[in-house]
């Protein structure tokens, strides 16, 4: 989680999209993505329309594209794969800018790139307009099993605590002449990850004690 309000992907705002109930946003996101995935690969107009709908939502949410764009780097591995597809696929060849490429590969790569980009952008928009807490409540309202929602809540809460612990362990390792980046020291790193796991497990036990002490019976109020 970042400083101040919300999590790292959250963009503070008060737009209609921000205020919309989280469970509706989850449903809208999942529905939208199912439609985009189900579109025939060569339905370029339909893909364009979906992209326009998404851009309209972003415009209404007032989350600047400048904010979303750098966060889209997560798509890069898929994009690289999509770009390679026309070169490695079989099938009839066609010429693009004087280079012979596979035609089915070109179609598949383009489809992957379009669907992927729309999906990532839609998810980022959702993340930028929904607080983690609202998301959990939304999932609860959608009747996602309570235990799953609780586990997600704890994950969000303790992500910082555990990464902080990891950071301190790495600093302590470095201070004693161990460089976790060098493969020579990977065994040490693996052992320290094991230690981190045990520490987290023990913290889990302590948190559970603290919950029981306040009358926890298996359901978060």
């Amino acid at each position: 989680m970042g400083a101040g309000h919300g999590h790292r992907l959250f963009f503070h705002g008060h737009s209609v999209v921000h205020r919309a109930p989280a469970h509706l946003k989850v449903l809208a996101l999942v529905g939208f993505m199912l439609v985009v995935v189900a579109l025939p690969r060569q339905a370029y107009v339909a893909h364009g329309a979906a992209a326009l709908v998404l851009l309209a939502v972003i415009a209404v949410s007032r989350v600047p594209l400048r904010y979303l764009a750098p966060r889209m780097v997560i798509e890069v591995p898929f994009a690289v794969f999509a770009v390679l597809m026309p070169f490695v696929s079989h099938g009839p060849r066609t010429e693009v800018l004087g280079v012979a490429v596979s035609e089915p590969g070109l179609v598949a790569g383009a489809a992957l790139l379009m669907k992927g980009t729309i999906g990532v952008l839609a998810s980022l928009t959702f993340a930028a307009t929904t607080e983690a807490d609202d998301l959990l409540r939304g999932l609860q309202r959608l009747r996602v099993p309570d235990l799953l929602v609780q586990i997600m809540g704890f994950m969000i809460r303790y992500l910082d605590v555990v990464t902080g612990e990891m950071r301190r362990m790495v600093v302590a390792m470095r201070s004693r002449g161990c460089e976790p980046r060098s493969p020579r020291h990977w065994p040490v790193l693996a052992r320290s990850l094991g230690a981190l796991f045990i520490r987290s497990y023990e913290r889990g036990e302590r948190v559970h004690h603290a919950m029981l002490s306040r009358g926890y019976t298996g359901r978060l109020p």
Partner: protein
Amino acid sequence: MIPVLDVRGLAFAYPDGHQALYGVDLHVHAGERVALLGPNGAGKTTLVLHLNGILSGGAGSVTVSGLPVVTDNLAEVRRRVGIVFQDPDDQLFLGTVRQDVAFGPANLGIKGAALERRVMHALDQVGMADFVDRPPHHLSFGQRRRVAVATVLAMEPEILVLDEPSSNLDPTSRRELADILRGLDVTVLMVTHDLPYALELCPRSVVLSDGVVVADRSTYDVLTDEELMAAHRLELPWGFDPRSIGSLPA
């Protein structure tokens, strides 16, 4: 008068065979503030976890205002005994201060306006009402400790059990917490290594060492009994002399 806390002959061994308690007797009466002192590994935390039935199964008994700590009574026992754990990150596990403070009373079945009143009253008592909508992990350590105290106060316990309340606090936060604890109208059992803190807040001290109670008298008497102190690895900070401060009125 029935003591708020009545521990008799409590013995306990962990599943790995390590015996932590060898027959502990401890009584705390309403309105008292008692310090539980002892070196590392004396069994203090093990004892604390017995007070509300998190640990059980050994010999002896624990009774809270006449109610035995047994499986059927756990819900009521846990309302009566409020434990504040040492690491606030273990105690504050929800998204906002409000949710965390409401967690206990909500488990007791309190809802709506009554719940809100409890939350705000508990936060007022520790001076954290302004932070009600903040995520706990964005607070300073001292603030988190105070919110952790509020999460337990919201259950309106009969006895507040604090595990190392002054650990990791800067001197100002430490003093602020002392002011808060002094102002509370509740029985307190405070586990601590911070002997000046014990002298400042608790008229009476119980020394636990190797799983048994080896002393139970006024904090001043304990801290000035050099033989007892040395025998149980208790040490005053350099330059601190209880004699120059004197005893709290019991």
